[in-house]
């Protein structure tokens, strides 16, 4: 298939996935901000949200003071923020439009409809009225686009590049989400960064981790898998190392490997090797070792490797990213 077509498909999938995960992060932050806490802690929470998306500077440029409303506005509807839900859904739709001939009618119409409906939602003040319902809607549009893709598209290259985009983006986003605690830097939060992780859990901490679980739709999953109280090491284990957890890092990288294998060409050997190595490390890794190294350090290195993989995919198959 055309490299440019593959490129559009890849980015279409990445953007819709990113919109979904942004909605998830905002949702979790909105929930935790309702916990009894000081104004400083609440502000820290929103800063963390901007920090993990590397958007702190861009936000500060526009808004001299930080408040929840402005962060929501910036992350949801600001067209000047390339990572806002608005920008992501627009970019997903524009990428889909560029290759609508390679998509089934249903897939194209889903993306087009999402974009049209978002504008309607925003102009009818959905964000002001009930932000959590809006986030729910974004999540379901992303579910729908994935479901329609799986349910209607031929399992050919186009499909594999879409899946590659989905899982590379999700690996990146899940890692950032787990790391939110680090960026939050509440005194109780960094207890196992470089420390042993089995200290008693502060009750507020419980809510943080529970919210993170909820944000990746893993709260019930956690109960089912561990049948026990929520502890940070187990949450980390579930979201990093479990191969049966659909948003875990291991599962994302395993899917990246499968789809890379499906599209491989004469140039892609190194990308496959690196993806395979990462999968092996996740598959045979132990959470104690990861926590011993420090969760933040581990995730930082993971993000670098995912970024490297994405760059290689562009180089080997797509329209190479030009250095800006």
């Amino acid at each position, binding site marked *: *298939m*055309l*490299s*440019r*077509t*593959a490129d559009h498909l890849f980015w279409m999938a990445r953007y819709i996935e990113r919109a979904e995960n942004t909605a998830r992060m905002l949702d979790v932050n909105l929930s935790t901000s309702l916990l009894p806490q000081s104004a400083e802690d609440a502000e820290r929470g929103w800063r963390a949200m901007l920090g993990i998306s590397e958007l702190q500077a861009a936000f500060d440029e526009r808004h001299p003071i930080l408040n929840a409303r402005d962060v929501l506005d910036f992350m949801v509807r600001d*067209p000047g923020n390339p990572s806002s839900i608005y920008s992501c859904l*627009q970019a997903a739709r*524009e990428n889909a*439009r*560029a*290759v*609508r*001939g*390679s998509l089934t*009618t249903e897939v*194209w*119409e889903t993306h*087009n*409809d999402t974009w*049209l409906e978002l504008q309607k939602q925003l102009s009818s003040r959905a964000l002001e009225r009930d932000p959590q319902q809006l986030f729910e809607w974004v999540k379901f549009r992303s579910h729908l686009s994935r479901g329609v893709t799986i349910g209607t598209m031929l399992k050919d*290259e186009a499909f594999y*590049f879409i899946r590659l985009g989905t899982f590379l983006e999700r690996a990146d986003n899940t890692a950032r989400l787990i790391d939110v605690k680090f960026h939050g830097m509440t005194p109780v939060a960094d207890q196992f960064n470089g420390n042993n992780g089995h200290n008693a859990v502060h009750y507020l901490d419980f809510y943080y981790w529970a919210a993170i679980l909820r944000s990746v739709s893993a709260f019930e999953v956690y109960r089912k898998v561990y049948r026990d109280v929520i502890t940070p090491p187990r949450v980390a284990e579930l979201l990093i190392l479990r191969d049966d957890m659909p948003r875990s890092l291991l599962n994302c990288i395993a899917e990246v490997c499968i789809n890379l294998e499906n*599209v491989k*060409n*004469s140039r892609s050997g190194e990308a496959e090797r690196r993806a395979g190595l990462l999968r092996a490390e996740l598959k045979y890794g132990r959470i104690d070792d990861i926590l011993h190294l420090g969760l933040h350090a581990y995730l930082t290195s993971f993000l670098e490797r995912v970024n490297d993989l994405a760059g290689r995919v562009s180089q080997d*198959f*797509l329209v190479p990213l030009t250095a800006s």
Partner: protein
Amino acid sequence: MGVAFDEMRAADATVRPHYRGFEAWRAAQSADAMQFKRAEADLVFRRVGITFAVYGEKDEDSAGTERLIPFDVIPRIIPAAEWAQLEAGLRQRVKALNLFVHDVYHDQNMIRAGRIPPDQVFKNAQYRPEMHGVDVPGGIYAHIAGIDIVRAGAGEYYVLEDNLRVPSGVSYMLENRKMMMRLFPELFARNRVAPIAHYPDLLLENLRSVAPQGVADPVVALLTPGMYNSAYFEHAFLAQQMGIELVEGQDLFVQDNAVFMRTTRGPKRVDVIYRRVDDDFLDPLAFRPDSSLGVPGLLGVYRAGRVTLANAIGTGIADDKSIYPYVPDMIDFYLGEKPLLANVPTYKCRNTGELEHVLAHLPELVVKEVHNAGGYGMLVGPAATKAEIEQFRAKIKSDPANFVAQPTLALSTCPTYVESGIAPRHIDLRPYVLSGKDIATVPGGLTRVALREGSLVVNSSQGGGTKDTWVLER
């Protein structure tokens, strides 16, 4: 300009026979139900993304504005016998036009015979000296032609314009039918409407049939200027329907005297390019050097006969408005036949006598700039203000050869939904003619309608709408 011919009703207001089935059905529908269906059509067109981009208008994100082309649910109906005559005339005309282009770039017999002035051809901006002596497969230049037809007077058909470069609109013809069948399936059960959905198959067959010699299984691609082009929807639609790659200039490159696409598995050879990019932008090495839409080196490969372009380079020489008056002569000269479809009488302002007549009758005439398309750069005398007429007079005087003029035709009308209910609006018709090994058409074409009362300008860029076009089989 007299009273316009109405497609549905005779002068005594009785419904014409071929419209009786439809009109009886429509009269039985409640106004609410029709209103609902019309709203549904709008919604579906928007959701499906059947839009066109408007040049020069930008929204706040500085992306091009996407607009719907208004769709009217009352079809334009043509009886089978009338279509048969039209079709014969179209085949004859396109055949002659292809022979003319071939002649221009080879022996120039028609010019030698004194049937067309040489400067009309050689000084024409659409003449491409690069094409001289180049043989194209089957001698076909205009593989896809869109011939604009109007009906005037007591119902006579005239050819208003030949579009032989990159005619557009066929996707609307197909989507309009799909929409009508979706909204009103019962209508198609009751009326024998000739199907048109096989057009993409015909087009693909046609494109494959003109591949360079010796290519057994040709790879066909559609070259688009990109997603901000006004007809991008159509490019994507046709590529998808034919199952061929939709490429932009950046996706193609020339190597070893062949054209390749960049794919995820390396270069892939392309044999036939259905290009929807104008001549000027095709190859920055040969034509406009600032074009980023084309493929450097494409012309060389093309001239060597190692890739086919559809339509060929240089077809504009046959559809230019200054050449149009000579088409009946072409039919006589190359085919020895009488034209089955009439031209609109046309004054060539380059001839002093005709110029004087035009200048004396501006308020009655339609004056067109010879190289413009899309309804841009024309004067509709009866609808123009005195100031506009005087402005145009000055333009004509400063460069008479650049203008032709025609009497203002009372274009036929068709009942159309407007704000105040149903009212007659002027329409035209663009049938599509495919030339390859054979000449093929699908019954009907795209009917465009001028939605403003009294307006004769049907172009979508000027606020026109479209209708489904039925050829009624008996």
